[in-house]
């Protein structure tokens, strides 16, 4: 009973608690690759702490959409983070582990983020929103289909049910690989990483996500930054636990849960490493080349579904 409660709480708070660390690790690796010392991996926590204690400036043109958006965007990431397999394949807290529910719940966050970008009436925000929605619309096909591919292989579109089956063992190596590549492309697009967006810049020509949150400050900016870190961890968890579901705790057992947490940490660090390497070795693409990449993600998955007998 006690272990159940602990697992329950862990499932809810794991994403928001560890997500900033994830961002910190990626930044640290990137710094090392650029021959810099870089800030410590706990720097994102300090940034959040600092932002939470700052005063705020809100535009006179902003409506309640702008004021509410950070809460909605952040809550969405908490809800989704609690609804996907993180370290245990049985801990379905909200009962909403269906792949379409996850995807469309994440879309609520995108919707309000984009509206907030338009709301302040600046020149940056609107264009950020336009770009973000273009990317989100085109990424949707690949996102749904890559999760659907693993769903069809395991005979259920419930993410927890999918994570209970080992995909590779079932002899669907090629379809799973294609679906995984597709999901990785979507991951980069949805979490505003290279080659889609540059998370470290405030240059008007390149920015998408940063342009939308340009007017935020103080607590609201902290929530927005935190939410985007959460989203990164959510996608990493999806990619790692659906395609490499080993190490997940299958039942309530404290040993299994501890091992599972360690395995989850290792998987996440590997993904952070790969993302950091990618960001160090490739350049950001021109905006109108991105649709090709997203279409490739979709077509990979169509091929993957065809390959499943």
């Amino acid at each position, binding site marked *: 009973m006690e272990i159940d409660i602990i697992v329950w709480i862990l499932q809810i708070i794991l994403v928001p608690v560890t997500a900033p660390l994830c961002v910190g690790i990626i930044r640290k690796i990137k710094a090392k690759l650029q021959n810099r010392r870089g800030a410590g991996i706990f720097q994102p926590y300090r940034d959040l702490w600092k932002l939470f204690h700052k005063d705020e400036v809100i535009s006179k043109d902003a409506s309640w959409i702008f004021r509410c958006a950070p809460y909605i965007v952040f809550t969405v990431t908490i809800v989704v983070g609690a609804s996907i397999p993180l370290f245990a394949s049985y801990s379905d807290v909200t009962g909403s582990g269906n792949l379409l529910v996850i995807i469309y719940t994440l879309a609520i966050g995108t919707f309000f983020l984009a509206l907030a970008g338009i709301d302040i009436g600046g020149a940056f925000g609107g264009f950020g929103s*336009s770009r973000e*929605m273009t990317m989100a619309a085109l990424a949707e096909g690949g996102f749904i*289909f890559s999760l659907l591919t693993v769903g069809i292989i395991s005979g259920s579109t419930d993410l927890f049910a999918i994570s209970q089956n080992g995909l590779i063992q079932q002899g669907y190596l090629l379809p799973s690989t294609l679906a995984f590549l597709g999901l990785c492309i979507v991951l980069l697009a949805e979490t505003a990483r290279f080659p889609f967006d540059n998370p470290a810049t405030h240059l008007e020509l390149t920015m998408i996500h940063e342009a939308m949150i340009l007017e935020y400050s103080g607590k609201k900016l902290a929530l927005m930054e935190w939410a985007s870190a959460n989203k990164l961890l959510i996608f990493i968890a999806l990619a790692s636990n659906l395609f490499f579901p080993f190490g997940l705790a299958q039942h309530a057992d404290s040993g299994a849960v501890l091992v599972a947490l360690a395995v989850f940490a290792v998987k996440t660090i590997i993904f952070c490493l790969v993302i950091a390497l990618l960001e160090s070795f490739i350049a950001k693409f021109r905006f109108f080349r991105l649709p090709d990449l997203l279409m490739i993600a*979709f077509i990979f998955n169509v091929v993957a579904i065809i390959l499943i007998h």
Partner: protein
Amino acid sequence: MIDVIISQIIFIASLLCFTVGGIGALLLRKNDAIANIWSNFFAILASLFGLSFAALAVMSGGDTSFSIGAFSLPFFSLSFHIDQLSAFFIFIISLISLFCSVYAIGYVKHFYKKYDIGVLGFFYNMFILGMLLVASSSNWLFFLVAWEIMSIASYFLVIYDRHDQNNVRAGFLYLIMTHVGTAFIILAALLLYKFTGSFDFASIQSASLLIPAPIKNIIFIFAIIGFGTKSGIIPFHIWLPDAHPAAPSHVSALMSGVMIKTGIYMMIRIFLYMIWPVPVWWGLALLVLGSVSSLLGVLYALTEHDIKRLLAYHSIENIGIILLGLGSALTFLSLGMPSLALLGFTAALFHTLNHAIFKSLLFLGAGSVISQTHTRNMEEYGGLIKYMPYTALFFLIGSMAISALPPFNGFFSEWLTFQSLFAGITLLSFYEKWIFILASGSLAFTGGLALACFVKAFGATFLARPRSSHVSHAKESSLSLRIGMASLALLCLLLGIGSGVMTVVLEGVGKNMAVFKNAASVVSLSGQHIVVGKNFASVSLPLLALFFMVTGGLVIYITKFIINKHQKVENNITWDCGTDLTERMEITATGFSRSIILIFRGILRPSIQHDIQYHDAQSRYLPKSRTVILKVHDVYRYYFYQPLHLAVNAVSSRVKNIQSGNTNAYILYIFIALIITLLSVLWK
């Protein structure tokens, strides 16, 4: 009590009220206010009658058949047959017309002194009456009369605002297209009569085995063209984005929300009732049509900056989504998988209801904006959320529902549609599987693009700063408008939360039909969860909504009242890079969707034209004015309708040659015709 309501008396009372409302409005046309109140009061009363009748008929599942009067005419009878399917569509019609009529009481006021309110009331009531008759008649000839009442009345409503030449032109296009459609419907009805010897729906159904297979295919194609024109299926849609925006907004809401569904109703009636069983390719054809309509519908919507045209294109998209459900139902049925077919059918019905609700909500919201700003151009809006906060909130709820965001109703019916398509991908093989993959792919992209489109629609209309002086004069709309919109917005949420119950009810509607009699249900309710198949998929919107509210509440509480309680919040101007930030620097509706249009330029064919006028025409240093014209060509008009139009004109000018104007020649024609007739009689 229930018996009385289910009996036809209440339904006839509803029809009578519409008649009284219509004719009374015409008689009282001298006084605008009285005519308005009279027509809408009776429309509300009639809708309430219809609503209570239909709701109980759907719940109790009884069939009602009755005729009014006895006609000595052969074939024709005023015969009604209301099974659960009819009752469900009567429910939708009454529900939407109830809220539209409430809305109309306040909305019509801005037509006072400009136009004749009595005429509006007359056609408005006749229009709804026509739709009710369409959904309940059970005789082809009676049905065609009802269909014409509906079409003609809606034509007059489209051209009601007749001072605008565009509206008259749109109405004319609508009149032509709807009658081309009706011609095909008549042909289909005559073919059915020829082989079954009856115009009565039930008799046709019992004699349907007499229809040979090729004729069935022809009937299918005619029905698709005929009813597809009314529903706005691409490529028969060209009238829809012109005609729906032209009508007064509460009528647009009814046309987009309800009238186009009568086409869907008749498709179900013919394919799944009258001439069942059907070949597999019918279902697949519907899936392809649905995919094309949904994807192209939303793409064209993205190119619009006229708010009502944008919404009209979204109707095409949503009809496509309904067709995806219906198409998968037909496919599964003809492959002998009735349980999955029932799933697709339920999805189609649920989306029909949901779309009726959120689309009419959006049209009413647009109408309330237009009545304040007097323009439909979204580029001239901006910042309306501060002037019309309630309208903005209701429009936001409608936008979220149509973009299929949980926990609103649109999400759940799309979720069900997805499930039936996924089932097709998993179970079918070869080219059927390919078509299901195509369908779910287009549904996935449609969802994403619809989201983008409504960020644009809501953002450009309500957010940022006003882009024209129209906005700064805007005030929140009056109470009756707000009641109409608020009820629909509430329904969006309630149907989302209560989607489990609704699914069971709609499955009941399906099971009432003979084709689904033996279908085991794939959807089951376990606790709060709706489960499809053996744990293939499950969802619980109430739990999700609850979890969301609790977490959201906690987040707000902690950030506001625990961390850094004494934070100072200052209001200041938006970061302007040191220049004066004017409203012309905001993103516009056109600018917002520009990148998507460019990405899909292969389909949308955008064109750009620059015109510059100079002060000094020779040296061209000092430009006086610049114009940029962005256009998106309608591919269908260009490649399908224009060649058709040219061909018809060419044939007509050829045929004209026999009209020589010489009396002797005409007598010769008569003579030849007589001889041919005689010969053909003798031949037999």
